[in-house]
């Protein structure tokens, strides 16, 4: 019988011998610090996003190799608010899983997971994140909003808005983004016939104004000097220190796959204390830039923006411009920035960037075709871009800062 026992033991042990030890779960970041970079490895498939920390955006290097907090998937959006960093999964029809982090001793520290919905616009408002899930089907025109309290990290209220009735033109309103302006929420929108995103109204801009406390629609303001404000998933509004609201139009309304707007890419204004477009202010960007259009912007303070722009030939509803320049909305000027890599070497520019709001500095992600990425410091006062932190093994999708 001895041989039996021995053999049985051996057989089982052979199977078990391989069980490896678990990690102890404490992972020290390669470059501890309060800057957070979200990076997608430059591989087309089977990838997750990684959250990396860095002590400085101006020097040094950081990599996804063996470093970073893995996120489940790459279809993600990131926002920093109320001293918290939120990583939100965009999953068609799936509940939107959100993970909230803070930074402790230069290291990301997971606070909690919670669940929201997959939404098409979200922005900080008061103590909350306001989320909007927007209908694309005119047969079911109710769009749902959710208020997520950033202290309790819970959905505190929700409700609906009829985004078909809102436009009155038979098309659905699709908010390009939302922004808190005083006690109100400004939601610029484009109109869509259905989920093809085509429109028959390419030559107007609209902003829906909601009263935040009950999310009641107060009014819709309209401007026929430009096409719609912002772009899909792009914030087209900026609030200056004196509470003026500036808006850019990329002029990318489309129908049947063709750009149909006759209006130029331009910047307009809603003066502080009013809720109408300021008819005295109009900055024809297309004319000033020699035919370009704005695709994205970031407000640095002191009426100064860093803008991404595309030439007429590159123009498209989802193209992010690789031309970087400085716009001063007070002077109505546009000047290109020098010091960036050759456009032919650039794969993409990051659109979710960081600025300390000092009126002149912004840090933008530049992702090169060779697979390396850098943070460039853009100085609006000198119109220069300077290479800073190197990021190995991925494309930068967001640059954020957390105290």
């Amino acid at each position, binding site marked *: 019988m001895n041989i039996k026992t021995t053999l049985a033991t051996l057989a089982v042990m052979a199977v078990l011998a391989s069980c490896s030890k678990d990690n102890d779960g404490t992972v020290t970041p390669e470059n501890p610090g309060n800057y957070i970079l979200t990076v997608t490895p430059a591989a087309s498939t089977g990838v997750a996003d990684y959250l990396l920390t860095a002590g400085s955006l101006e020097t040094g290097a950081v990599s996804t190799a063996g470093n970073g907090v893995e996120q489940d998937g790459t279809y993600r959006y990131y926002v920093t608010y109320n001293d918290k960093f939120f990583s939100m999964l965009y999953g068609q029809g799936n509940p939107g899983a959100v993970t909230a982090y803070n930074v402790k001793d230069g290291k990301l520290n997971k606070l909690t997971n919670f*669940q929201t919905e997959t939404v098409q616009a979200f922005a900080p408002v008061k103590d909350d994140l306001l989320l909007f899930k927007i209908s694309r089907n005119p047969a079911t025109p109710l769009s749902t909003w959710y208020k997520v309290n950033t202290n309790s990290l819970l959905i505190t209220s929700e409700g609906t808005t009829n985004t078909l009735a809102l436009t009155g033109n038979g098309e659905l309103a699709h908010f390009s983004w939302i922004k808190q302006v005083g006690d109100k929420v400004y939601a610029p929108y484009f109109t869509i016939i259905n989920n093809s995103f085509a429109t028959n109204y390419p030559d107007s801009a609209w902003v829906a104004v909601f009263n935040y406390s009950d999310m009641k629609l107060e009014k819709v303001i309209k401007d026929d000097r430009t096409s719609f404000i912002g772009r899909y998933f792009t914030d087209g509004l900026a609030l200056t220190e004196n509470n003026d609201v500036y808006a850019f139009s990329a002029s990318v309304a489309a129908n049947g796959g063709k750009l149909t707007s006759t209006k130029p890419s331009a910047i307009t204004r809603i003066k502080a204390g009013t809720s109408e477009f300021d008819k005295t202010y109009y900055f024809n960007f297309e004319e000033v830039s020699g035919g370009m259009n704005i695709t994205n912007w970031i407000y640095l303070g002191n009426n100064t923006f860093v803008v991404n722009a595309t030439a007429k030939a590159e123009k498209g509803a989802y193209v992010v411009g690789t031309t970087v320049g400085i716009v001063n909305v007070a002077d109505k000027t546009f000047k290109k920035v020098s010091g960036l890599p050759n456009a032919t070497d650039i794969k993409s520019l990051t659109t979710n960037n960081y600025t300390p709001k000092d009126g002149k500095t912004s840090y933008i992600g530049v992702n090169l075709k060779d697979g390396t990425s850098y943070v460039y410091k853009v100085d609006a006062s000198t119109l220069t871009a300077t290479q800073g932190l190197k990021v190995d093994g991925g494309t930068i999708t967001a640059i954020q800062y957390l105290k």
Partner: protein
Amino acid sequence: MQIKQILLLGLLCACSIFSNAQTTGSLKGYVKNEAGEPVESATVKLLNTAFGTVSDNAGLFAIRNIAPGKYTLTITGIGIKPLQRAITITTGNETELLIAVKSAIVNMETVTVTGRSAAQESNRQAFNVTAVDAKKLYNTTLDLAGALDRVSGIRVRESGGVGSNFNLSLNGFSGNHVRYFIDGIPMDNFGSSFQINNIPINVAERLEVYKGVVPIWLGSDALGGAINIVTGDSYRNYIDASYSYGSFNTHRTVINTALTNKRGLTVQLNAFQNYSDNSYRVKVDAADINTGAYAPNTLLNRFHDTYHNENLIVNVGVVDKSWADKLLLGITLGKNYKEIQTGARMVSVFGGWHRKGDIIMPTLKYKKANLIKNLDVTLNANYNLGSEQNIDTMNVRYDWYGNSKPNGSNGERSKSMYKYKNNNGIATSVVNYRIGEHQSVALSDVFTTFNRKGNDAINPSSADNELTKKTQKNVLGLGYSYDVRDNWSVSVFGKYIYQNNINGSAANAAATNKFGYGIAATYFLLPALQIKSSYELTNRMPEAQEIFGDVENQEGNPNLRPEQSNNFNIGVSYAFSANSNSKFLVNANAIYRRSDNFIYNRLNNNQSKLVADNRDGVRTVGGDGEIRYSYKNWLTLGTTITYQYLQNLQKYEPEYTGVSPVYKDQMPNIPYFFGNGDVSVSLRNVGRKGNNLNIGYNLLYVHAFYLYWPSRGGDKLDIPQQLSHDINLVYSVASGKYNVGLECRNITDALLYDNFSLQKPGRAFYLNLRYFLNNINK
């Protein structure tokens, strides 16, 4: 390709010219034991001549071209007493014999390891094949997938309980790299109602697992291997019925029966049914649908996961006719219903979404050995008229507690009543011609067609439904083999594949031609020591489901390219005994694969569906091994181990010029180290004579693996190690006529995951009752 066909035809014609005129006689017979069961692998010889053969799995044998005269016939074999009989062969006549042999009790105990059952006989081919004797599992509640999971090199990943989605990987290849056959007929078109995760093991007689190179008679573009389910027809008149009941309100019934009269008229019937609530308990982060707060590690029962399927297979026809060994007309009827509890992550939970499917498939099977002398012909055809439907109509969000609230307008995930038919059919033909004792030439052709048509009652305008989704494929194979039985054999073969896909409109039609070839050889160093080796340049075309999606979990990828791979296998098998009581069997295989345009499934960007995609290059190096041991006739032990390393060799990513950060990284989300162990104790004559008690234990181990690329990130997501233990007890009365089985799966109630976050059932108990009656009227 024309020239090849012409050459082949010429070759076949030339061969048939050598057919002898009728100046000889022949001999045909059937070997049975005292229980009336067919005896397979018995050696049949005419003493002092070169004539000889081996009985097949139905106990049948035939020897032809014997000069007239008197001979002494000898029957020998492991587990039977040698027997001699005088016979007379006359010109132009076929002598028929019924031979009853007696079991050699003294040798019985060695059968487990050294006796060559049909299953083990398959293992002696030149191909790297593992055969599983399904009969040994008849008293369990396993389905085919569960049985296959115990084979070295195979890992079946399931997303949940009974009827859940599965993905079988074989030596690192998974999905449609591995093709399934039932009696040599591809199962590609059987739909959701008839799949390896809902067919009970009792339908099969044995399962043949070909790793890597697939023999020509399984004509197909399998790249990673093939699984052939042999249903067998060794019993001509029998009934085998079983019923089981167990945890999560699971009921399973299987009835297999066949009736054959003396004139060869036969009716075969397989009927089976599975039902389960799959209401097993899971540990989840359950979100409050109103506040979004998670209650971590909450224990809850699944509430929307009912699965059931009912199937009936009937074949009517004739056997043992001069013009047909078998001609069967049949129909496979079945339907299934499946509720969908979760998406690709357990945080997305559904309460109304479900799926239905049915199968209505007429079949034709024809087989004739020596249609003309030495020419065997097999023809099979079937056409599936069945349909599938995806039903998602509730505009709500569910939580794990079963609560729901209104949520937009697009169903739970994507509003749908889409119902479609794939209109798929298969025709296969194999012609095998033997040249003398050692050589044979085989020509095989498999044609498949797929034409999806569907509509959605609640999205009648959905343009996608109107698009043409059509694919046709033909695989033509030619093989030659030279076989010196129990000494050495070699096979060479070529395969020519043609596929035409139409996606959207005729303008988007794309035809592809691929040519592949290979060689397989085996050599017996000793009668019990076999080495085998094979090489193949193989092609695998994108499957219809991969191109067009399955409307549920698989997203279509019309741009998927065919994959090509160089496959090398080497294996060794050795049987030996330590002493007269202790017998060992050792198998070891090593594989090397270099694949271009490697096709694999990844999650889409939303993490909501799987999508098939190509990698430029993937290298697989791996090995698997098996050790079996038996002591006398009452104890058997076995263990299998598999290790496989799949490495990404795509150096550049699309649109990037630098070396990919995951170049030479291990492929993510693929189990790479796993194994099984089993112990079985058979106690004879328990209670009374003829009553046996069998106690079995099975262990499954899967090493943890990463969800995403291993080299990236420091704080990573993984699929944790799995270790589960199953035990079963079977009490058989009256030499196996009545059987009572008791089974416990996952005794330790371990949390098991095959896929990230998708928890499988915990501890479960099943009671299984089986009745078997065999009455051969030969």
